[in-house]
């Protein structure tokens, strides 16, 4: 509107150059707008797909999610099949993954950010971390199959699944650790050193508390990725039909703690869902949708927690 007025004014007083300029401006402005609409429509299509995915899961799967679904073992009869073994298995595997990935990833990230000298060894490690982040997850599965199972003689255990998923999310934890350490102002380190703290005291007592929320966010993001990973766990041969639970970690007899569950056979949520999707009967597809809903709820909760922590962090930073 404003453009038309301008061109009319210009045309009245200035002649054809001004008119052409006005037309050019109008055209550019139109292109600008067309492009913006393009960007927004791609986003809308993506949002539409997300919505239809979630709605589709709800419509097909909501009827199968109830208490029995959560407390029943899988079954050949769809009406009595449940995900008890799967969610207990997922929880057990995630505990192992978190306990392995957190110390390893934080230590490696600390080293690279605070200690590492500028030499070829550091370069080698950094290139490896970047590369590992891009290695397809199924390759990790082959690593576990060829190395853990057939070289080290481990079995299809909770421990092996937790270990391979920990290796898989290690780059995520390392990168988030490094970023949190990097965002701490230099002055904190200098002040700590000036007070007589050595490197380890500076890192553990002054930097660690400040970096902790960022590291935690990274760990949660990594775990939410690990919880949905299917391929590497299939490759090590996790069973799809498990009608028992791993042994409880706490026992009634001395020493009250049992690590038997680490070597128990298991199944996890995504494998249970994959198994049900792969069957031809539509009753099992309903179950798959139900399992998908529960899985999605788990990952979304974790993602939301991560976003929340980061949001709090940013607020505090301001």
């Amino acid at each position, binding site marked *: 509107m404003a453009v038309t007025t301008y061109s009319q004014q210009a045309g009245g007083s200035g002649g054809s150059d001004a008119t052409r300029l006005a037309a050019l401006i109008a055209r550019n402005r139109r292109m*600008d707008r067309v492009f913006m609409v393009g960007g927004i429509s791609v986003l809308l299509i993506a949002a539409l797909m997300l919505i239809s995915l979630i709605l589709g899961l709800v419509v097909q799967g909501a009827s199968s999610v109830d208490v029995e679904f959560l407390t029943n073992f899988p079954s050949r009869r769809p009406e009595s099949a449940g995900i008890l073994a799967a969610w207990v298995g997922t929880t057990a595997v995630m505990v192992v993954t978190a306990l392995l990935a957190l110390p390893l990833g934080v230590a490696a990230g600390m080293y690279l950010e605070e200690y590492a000298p500028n030499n070829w060894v550091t370069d080698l490690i950094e290139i490896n971390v970047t590369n590992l982040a891009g290695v397809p997850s*199924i*390759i990790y599965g082959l690593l576990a199959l060829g190395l853990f199972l057939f070289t080290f003689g481990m079995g299809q255990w909770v421990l092996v699944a937790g270990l391979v998923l920990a290796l898989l999310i290690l780059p995520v934890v390392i990168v988030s650790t490094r970023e949190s350490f990097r965002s701490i102002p230099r002055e904190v380190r200098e002040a700590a050193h000036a007070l007589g703290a050595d490197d380890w005291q500076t890192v553990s007592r002054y930097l660690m508390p400040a970096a902790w929320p960022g590291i935690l966010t990274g760990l949660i993001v990594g775990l939410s990725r690990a919880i949905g990973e299917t391929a590497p766990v299939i490759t090590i041969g996790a069973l799809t039909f498990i009608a028992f639970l791993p042994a409880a970690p706490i026992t009634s007899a001395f020493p009250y703690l049992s690590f038997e569950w680490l070597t128990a056979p298991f199944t996890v949520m995504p494998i249970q869902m994959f198994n049900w999707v792969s069957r031809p009967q539509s009753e099992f597809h309903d179950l798959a949708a139900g399992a998908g809903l529960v899985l999605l709820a788990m990952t979304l909760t974790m993602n939301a927690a991560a976003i929340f922590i980061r949001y709090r962090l940013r607020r505090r930073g301001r």
Partner: protein
Amino acid sequence: MTANSIAQVQATDAFLRRRRRVDRLMRVVLFLAATVSVLVTAGIVFVLLRESITFFQSVSIVEFLTGTRWTPLFTSAHFGVLPLLSATLTVSAVALLVAIPGGTLVAIYLSEFAPDRVREVVKPLLELLEGIPTVVYGYFALLFVTPVLQLVFPQLGGFNLLSPGLVMGVMILPYVTSVSEDAMRAVPSDLREGAYALGFNRLQTAVRVVIPGALSGITAACILGMSRAIGETMVVAIAAGQNAQLTFNPLEAAATIPGYIVQISLGDVPHGTVKYQTIFAVGLLLFLITLTFNVIGFFLRRRFREAY
């Protein structure tokens, strides 16, 4: 010097010595943790090579790379990887046709056009898309997208390469977006302001200043996206079919490299058989392809970081 102060000096000395020991020990411990990543890479290469070398003792490497039939499960076994490779490339091409234009467009929109409030809504949305488990995407491709596509292409089978390709495209889009947007944001705002001062509008600034400035980063995003598409497993394992056939037609069903590895792993894999070794041989091929893309992407990204 009094006895008291001597004792004090000795105590401080012991404390300092103990502290130095802890400091040195922690340095070594942290270094060892950092080398785990190198060990993992070494382990991957070792396992893949060991099994592949045994495999190539019974199957010639030329037949593997140029054969057009992949029938390792039949009695008359053929080990030509081209059918698996063609399907992998086809499904990745479909995914990239969605993810690269879409992702770049969204990245330009987010970095040059969108107001902060829009960004704050869109970023978590993209993270959500990235966070959905791949097995859920596979379910979506098989049971929702394929039936919808069958309305458009009535001849489309229940398994095909088109539907997992499209779903994978949306799945990779957030990744392509975030890497390219990083690159675009790294272009200094002086350049943008210069362009505005010369009378450029936002689109012209984006196309003539920001994109050329961020080109290596945008290319890196595309290449890294490609690597992800090729290695993505569950969507194709669920929705692309299991018969290896040499095809570049996205409307057909065909097994991909990751899909084949899953298919074999689901069955009973007797250790030491040729069947067991095939998954490592195709795994090695997959690893080499993605490694090549990752390395190229790594150096391109490093270049745009150094440029500014």
